[in-house]
């Protein structure tokens, strides 16, 4: 058990810090949360800066256009960029964290060369077309049909909750290619260009007031067969690769950010005098324990993947289950620190409180995470 970083790792950290200090002042002003084209421009400009500095796709393998960095270097990258106040992945989320890794792991050399460099350069944005009105937790129940017609699939159906759909160039799309097969065995994974005829995007407003996700209607959209990643009807397995990425590495920067928020809450409570309330104080103290432990658990998971050299496994479900709940508790505590100011949406932490409500739902609800933990880690029998 060694928590000390090696000399090489510290050197990496030092160079990164220097670069961040020099680069961040050059960022354009932060766009308004409702201006999606501006958000896209901002997020991709940041990605381009990373690319030019050699930090894009840091931990991706070289044959995917990555730098082949170790998981620990990736951890340091996420920690330092967050500490320096650099932008989040934002609109690059699906490309960098879901679709990209899937293509890197399952795509052909031609597919990797076609789709990965534009993601790394910040030229192209992806969205994730998995969920449907009748297929949420039970994702394999999806019904969007893809019928083979020559060199194309003709796709008809509806997706929902598609984040960033309005500004995406590509959609990683799950479709049913064999309606007769058992539900997990008739699914394929397609890369759909979002400018193809027959796609209608209708934004949905979230409870936070903004339009983070959308409904996507597909009416006989033609997607070339060569845009399929993995074999026909093997899309479920290909998807599981994506989802394990999503649950394994997506929250590192956020845990760092949560710890900073917690410090800021303590300072604010001391300033306003609410700190004298031992119930609030102890609540914040407990959250300190929770986030310290989540950070250490992250380091343990990263070290484990460093040793196995593998794709992050179901252990990410334990992390996500605990983290999503604790994040909500953090912003409940924030509301207590804010007192009467907790009802002013423009006050810091109030929008975060609202958006934290999605954490126990998106990317697999907490109930589904418990099923995964119980069945796949603890080996309990599947329910009926």
């Amino acid at each position, binding site marked *: *058990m*060694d*928590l*000390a*970083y*090696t000399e090489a*790792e510290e050197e990496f950290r030092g160079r990164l810090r220097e670069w961040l200090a020099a680069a961040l002042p050059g960022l354009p002003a932060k766009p308004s949360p409702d201006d999606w084209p501006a958000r896209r421009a901002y997020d991709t400009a940041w990605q381009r800066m990373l690319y030019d500095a050699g930090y894009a796709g840091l931990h991706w393998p070289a044959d995917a256009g990555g730098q082949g960095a170790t998981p*620990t270097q990736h*951890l340091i990258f996420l920690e330092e960029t967050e500490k320096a106040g650099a932008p989040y992945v934002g609109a690059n989320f699906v490309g960098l964290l879901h679709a990209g890794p899937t293509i890197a792991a399952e795509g052909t050399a031609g597919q990797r060369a076609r789709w990965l460099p534009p993601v790394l350069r910040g030229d192209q944005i992806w969205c994730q077309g998995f969920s449907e009105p009748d297929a949420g937790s039970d994702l394999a129940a999806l019904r969007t049909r893809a019928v083979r017609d020559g060199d194309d699939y003709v796709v008809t159906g509806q997706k929902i909750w598609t984040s960033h759909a309005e500004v995406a160039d590509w959609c990683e799309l799950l479709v049913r290619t064999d309606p007769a097969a058992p539900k997990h065995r008739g699914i394929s994974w397609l890369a759909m260009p979002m400018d193809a005829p027959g796609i209608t995007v209708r934004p949905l407003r979230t409870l936070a007031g903004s339009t983070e996700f959308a409904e996507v209607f597909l009416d006989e959209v033609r997607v070339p067969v060569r845009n399929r990643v993995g074999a026909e009807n093997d899309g479920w397995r290909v998807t599981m690769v994506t989802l394990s990425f999503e649950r394994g590495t997506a929250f590192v920067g956020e845990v760092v950010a949560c710890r900073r928020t*917690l*410090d*800021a*809450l*303590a*300072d604010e409570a*001391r300033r306003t005098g609410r700190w004298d309330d*031992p119930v609030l*104080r*102890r*609540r*914040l*103290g*407990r959250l*300190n*324990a*929770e986030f*310290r*432990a*989540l950070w*250490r*658990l992250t*380091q*343990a998971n*990263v*070290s*484990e993947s*460093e*040793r196995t050299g593998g794709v992050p496994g179901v*252990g990410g479900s*334990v992390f996500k*289950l*605990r983290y999503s709940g604790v994040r909500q508790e953090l912003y409940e505590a924030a509301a207590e620190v804010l007192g009467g100011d907790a009802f002013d949406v423009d006050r810091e932490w109030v929008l975060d409180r609202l958006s934290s409500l999605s954490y126990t739902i998106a990317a697999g609800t907490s*109930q589904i*995470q*418990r*099923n995964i*933990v*119980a*069945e796949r*880690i*603890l*080996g*309990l*029998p*599947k*329910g*009926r």
Partner: protein
Amino acid sequence: MDFQLSDDQRALRSGMRDLLGAVFDRGRLRAAVERDGALDRSLWRELGAAGFFALRLPEEAGGVGLGLPEAVLLFEEAGRALLPGPLVATHLAAGLVKGAAEGEAVVTAVAADLPAAHLAEADAVLVVDGQAPPGLPGDVLSGDVSGAEVLSGEALGAFVAAARPVRSVDPLTPLHRLAGRAVPTGAPQAYSGALHYEAALLTAAEQLGSAARTTEAAVQHAGERHQFGSPIGSFQAVKHLCADMLARTEPARAAVYAAAVTGDPAEIAAAKLLADEAAVRNARDCLQIHGGMGFTWEADVHLHLKRAWLRAASWLTVARAEELLAADLGAAGRLPRSSAAYGRPVPEAGGGG
């Protein structure tokens, strides 16, 4: 960074598990319950011979020369197996009290107004000042005194005579109530800062072992017991209890191991807080999953729960851990950042970490 057990650490842990399997199997556990937790001196010596108490003494002093991370792994195994006795106090007394390192002496500790464990059997007692670890500003907690005194011989006799045996809630831990608050009167022989923090960490490690064990027991029972024609573990109400048990254990494990590596007071407080909660709540859930069987004397789960209650009240309680962790927050963050902060290690007793 490599935050995983090394091969040596894995070997140490499995060696300890094998040892306990051999010298303290379930039969001996239940025999210990039948004699109200009275200690088995030959088992104590066997632990001593295996290096359990001398683990962190330097090799020149006849110890094993290992550190807190290794100690934490051994205490985790002890917690798993419900190994009885004042393990933490005797381990911390190695090098300070004659015979402790070898398992020849049984050393217990008393602090504040907590009942004293295994007092009648003890060859020496560490009287530790207050329950509060130093390091906190006086406006948050009082009792910031840095003394621990060792009582033995006649002084110990008088101390024990003044204490009153009680019927212990934990069948594995005989308890005495003290006449008043335990306060060292003589010159301090050890720095209680190190004692408090290291004791809290090793206790947290025992809690971790217990939490992992009750999770396993719950999962095993949920897979075997059938109702309504199915294993009860196929019902989500049961399955989700088990998942939550793991989601308590794993963060606690990361916190305990990290605290053992850094020795940081706030990190130790986090470890104790999360491990206490994991041990107590997992034992409760395990009990629930066992149904009527869980409420029996015969099932081991009550032994885990009662011991977990007692450990949670020892060294660093929830309230104090939370206050400590609160004091650590913010720009004003007033907690020292490393083990150096809580002072010299116990003389000759390793200090570790």
